[in-house]
Each structure stands twice: as C-alpha cells, then as structure tokens.
C-alpha cells in the first residue's frame, strides 16, 4: 500500500503539471479541461466536509453550486448591461470583480446552507437525502421561471470577470486562480479535520449519542459543517460560472448533486483528496470515453459499478488501504 500523503502530493503535482505542459505545447483546451476538473473538485471538497466527515448525505448540494453561479451571473449581468440592481434598501451597480463576487457567493450560499440545514437536520438517513433534494429542486424550478434572469436560458456573461493583476481570459491564469482556491480549500479542510471542531464532528457522525453525553450538541456541529460545506460548494459554483461565462438552472439540477456525490465515492469518501481524484478521473473519463463513442455512458456506468463492487473506499482506498490505516 502506498502512503496516502504521497498519493496526495503526486495528485496535486500532476494537476499542476498537466496544464503547464499544455501551455508549453500550446494546447489551451487541456488547460480548460483541467480547470473544469479543479472546479468540480472544489465543489466536491465542499460536499465532502458534510458527507465524509459529518455523515450528511446531501443530495441537494447543487443548490449551493447554483447559488454561487447565480451570484456571479446576476452581479456580472447588471454590470455588463449597466443596469443598476435595486435591492430596495440600496442600489448596486453589479460588479465584474471576482473577489467581490466570491464574497457574495460564499455569504449567500452559506446563508442558504444554514436555512436548509436547520430544517433538514430534523431528519436523518434517507429522509435527509430526500429533503435536501427537495430544497435543491425548489431552487431549480424557481430559476427556470425566473424570467428576469433568463429563466431556462440562463445568463450569458460575454467577458470573464476581472481579478486584480491578472488577465483572466488567458486560460492558464484562470486555472491558477481556481487551483489556488482548491489548495486553499484543501488546506482549510485539513486544518478543520484536525481541529477540536473536526474531532467533535467526526464523533458526531459515528456516535451522536456519545457526543451528547460529553455535553456537546451533534446537530449543531453538523449544521456548522453543512454551512462550511455549502459555502465552499457555492464558491465553486461562482468559479464554474466564470469558466463557462454562463449560468443556467442546470447548475441546480439533481444530476449535478448526484455527480458531486459520484466524484466523492469514486475518489474516496472522507479522504482529503478523494474528491480531487474523483473529479480528475471523471473529467478524464468524460473526455476520453466521449471521444470514442456517443454511447460512452455505458462504459462510464460499468466503470462506476466496478468501483462500487470491487473498490470499496474509492480509488484512494484501493491505492492506500482503508481510512485511518496509513
């Protein structure tokens, strides 16, 4: 068995090396593909905090991904069309500045995660899976009929938003921004897991009753984890919107929630780099299988089945052994 630390380091190095190589040989699309993998990984890292450590199987994380996306879409839409956004208590011009957009995305998705989590955590098990799905579906249908922001058509942002000192239209520079966000989130994740909060959360997943008898409230621990999780996924949504320069209700769809879960299980649940490996594999499969045949979904399905049946613990589990052994 390989030590997880080495696999993690190799993975990050590879994720950085591929686009740099692509830059060298002038293959900008490979950089775009890597950026997509990095952003999906970021969204899944967010979900993994709730799912892997908090044991909260959220089938509705698309809600936060979409809220992040629409934060970007709405702010940039008003800025690009010079239509000030009247919030009732103040008038806002919109913005094309990424840091501001990120802040809004993080705050709004954290707020939504707080409300959804507060209500959903009254349930558990399959009921939790389904109630989170229900909330995401509400956002989905709301976005579809929200004609002010394009409804089903979504919002096109013609030029990617700005980041001070960088030209975000250059693929490698935008990749750099996303990669930095991912590394930051992973660092945060690692710190979180080792912190007092992480210890309590980890126990709250395994034996909530024990956590209660030492005087802590497992539901509150899980709620905080859910909020942090939603905020990170929301940030990923904003970046994803900027990658595509486009937002639409499909960011809220249950397929996306499912895909995020798939990424995590594919890589390894509750493993720091599980979502990253999952996202890289998924994007690579999508790209290469999709290039071979239009019926590539069959192959993808077979591979996913194989992982569930023969590689419990995901690919990281396959490489490094079960959790907690290395």
């Amino acid at each position, binding site marked *: 068995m390989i030590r997880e630390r080495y696999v993690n380091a190799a993975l990050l190095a590879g994720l950085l090396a591929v686009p740099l190589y692509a830059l060298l040989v002038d293959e900008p699309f490979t950089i775009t593909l890597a950026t997509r993998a990095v952003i999906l990984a970021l969204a899944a890292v967010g979900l993994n905090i709730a799912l892997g450590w908090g044991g909260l199987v959220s089938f509705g994380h698309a809600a936060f991904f979409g809220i992040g996306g629409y934060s970007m879409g709405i702010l940039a839409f008003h800025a690009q069309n010079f239509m000030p956004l009247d919030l009732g208590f103040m008038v806002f011009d919109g913005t094309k500045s990424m840091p501001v957009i990120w802040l809004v995305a993080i705050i709004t998705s954290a707020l939504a995660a707080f409300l959804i989590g507060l209500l959903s955590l009254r349930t558990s098990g399959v009921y939790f899976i389904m109630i989170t799905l229900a909330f995401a579906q509400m956002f989905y249908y709301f976005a579809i009929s929200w004609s002010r922001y394009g409804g089903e058509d979504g919002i096109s942002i013609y030029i990617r938003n700005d980041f001070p000192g960088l030209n975000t239209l250059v693929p490698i520079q935008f990749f750099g921004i996303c990669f930095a966000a991912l590394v930051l989130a992973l660092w945060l994740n690692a*710190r979180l897991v080792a*912190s*007092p909060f992480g*210890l309590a959360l*980890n126990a709250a997943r395994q034996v909530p*009753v024990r956590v209660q*008898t*030492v*005087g*802590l409230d497992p539901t509150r621990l899980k709620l905080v984890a859910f909020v942090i999780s939603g905020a990170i996924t929301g940030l990923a949504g904003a970046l994803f919107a900027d990658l595509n320069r486009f937002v639409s209700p499909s960011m809220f769809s249950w397929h996306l929630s499912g895909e995020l879960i798939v990424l995590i299980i594919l890589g390894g649940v509750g493993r720091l780099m599980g979502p990253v490996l999952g996202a890289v594999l998924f994007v690579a499969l999508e790209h290469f299988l999709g290039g071979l045949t239009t019926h590539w979904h069959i192959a993808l399905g077979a591979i996913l089945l194989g992982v569930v049946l023969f590689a419990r613990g995901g690919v990281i589990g396959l490489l490094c052994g079960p959790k907690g052994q290395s």
Partner: protein
Amino acid sequence: MTDTVLETRGITKSFGSLCASDGISIDLQAGEIHAVIGPNGAGKSTLIHQICGGLRPDAGQVLLQGQDVTALPTAARARKGLGRTFQISALAMEDSVLENVMLGALGASGRPWRFFVPVMGDRTLRDRATAALERVGLQDALHSRTAALSHGQRRQLEVAVALTLDPRAFVMDEPMAGLGAEGSKTLTGFLDGLRDQAPILLVEHDMDAVFALADRISVLVYGRIIATGTVDEIRRDPAVREAYLGDPA
C-alpha cells in the same frame, strides 16, 4: 449520607398502553453506589434514558444537585455533571483511543468551536485525557484504533471518557455486560474506588458485582420500584424474592 446528588421524583413514562416507568422515585447520595436491578423488560433502560435526557418523562421530575433538569437535553445534563457509560459501547470506532478520550475532554472544556488549531496540540485537553486513561489503565493503548480493542478495554475506555468530564454523578448501564469473570473482577475493583470521586447509579445484571459494590439496591419490576435497601435487606425481602428471583415466599 445526607447529600443527594441525583434524584428522580415520581417519574412516569408510558408507551401506548405499556407503562414503562410508573412513578419511580430514586435517589443517589454522595459517595455511594446505588444499584438498580430488575428482570428483563422491567424498564431499566427507560429509566436511564429519562435520567440522562434521551426521553422526556410524562410526569415527575429529574433533579441533579437539587436542580430540576427534567426539561434539559442530554448535552446540557452532561455539562451539569452527569457522566454516563453505555451498555453497548458508544465509541467512535474509527478513531484512536486517545481521540475518544479527547472528545470527552473537549466536551468538558465546552470549547468545540475552534476550527484552525490542531486539537492534539492542546496541552490542557491532552493532559486531562491522558490522566483519565491512566486512571483506567489504558495508557499503553493510547494510539490503538478503538475497533481493535478487546471488549474489556472498550468498557474501560467508556469509563475513561466519562471520567474526563469530572462528573458529579455517574450513570452506568450494565458495565459488566459481556465481560469474562476476570474482566468483571478488575472492573469491580476499579468501580469500588471510583465512588469516592462521584457516586454511581449502577444498572447491572451481574449479581456478584452488584452485591460486591452496592451500598444500596433498588429493585425495579414492571416499571415500579418494589424495594430499596442495603444488600442484606434486599436479599431478605420476600417481595423481591418472589417477583425477581421467582422464589415463592
């Protein structure tokens, strides 16, 4: 024995037509071990749940150090000094022994909302945790995975977690369950010394342990306390013999 640490006053709980607790009044004095015994289905688990906060009684009160805690949730009661061990080990099996005890210490500190400092680097918590492990004799198993512990060691760990809370009273649900004769003996010896730190409400099936440890025994049958007294009193009580041991008086 005049200092009442834990007390229930006429607590009653029904599930449909089944009355699992029928006006139970029971008290725990400083320095004692008070055992609750009774046949299966007598309502022992229901009683523990009500004392610890998992169930809300239909009527009656639970008092901890003279304070009414009936409406408080489990976590709040724990913070007020109620230490509990479980019949079936409730431990984080994926984690190490130290991590489990650290959780107790963290609960006692009341400061779980720290997100960026490594918990293992917190000396105060760590000292508290290792002290508790030393008390129960698990100091050598510090970094073992909990899942790899023997049954007896898990029992010890349960007690260690409760110890980190520095509780005012212990509630122990069948700590001897599943232990061999040797294990029971060790644990009995350990609990014997623990009563000076905090009194123990002990629910137990193992009669040898009960008779060896208990200062007082209450007998619970069909949701009612039919007798409370010293070991000898209980041994001689005809109602107990009939109801519990099945002996015709």
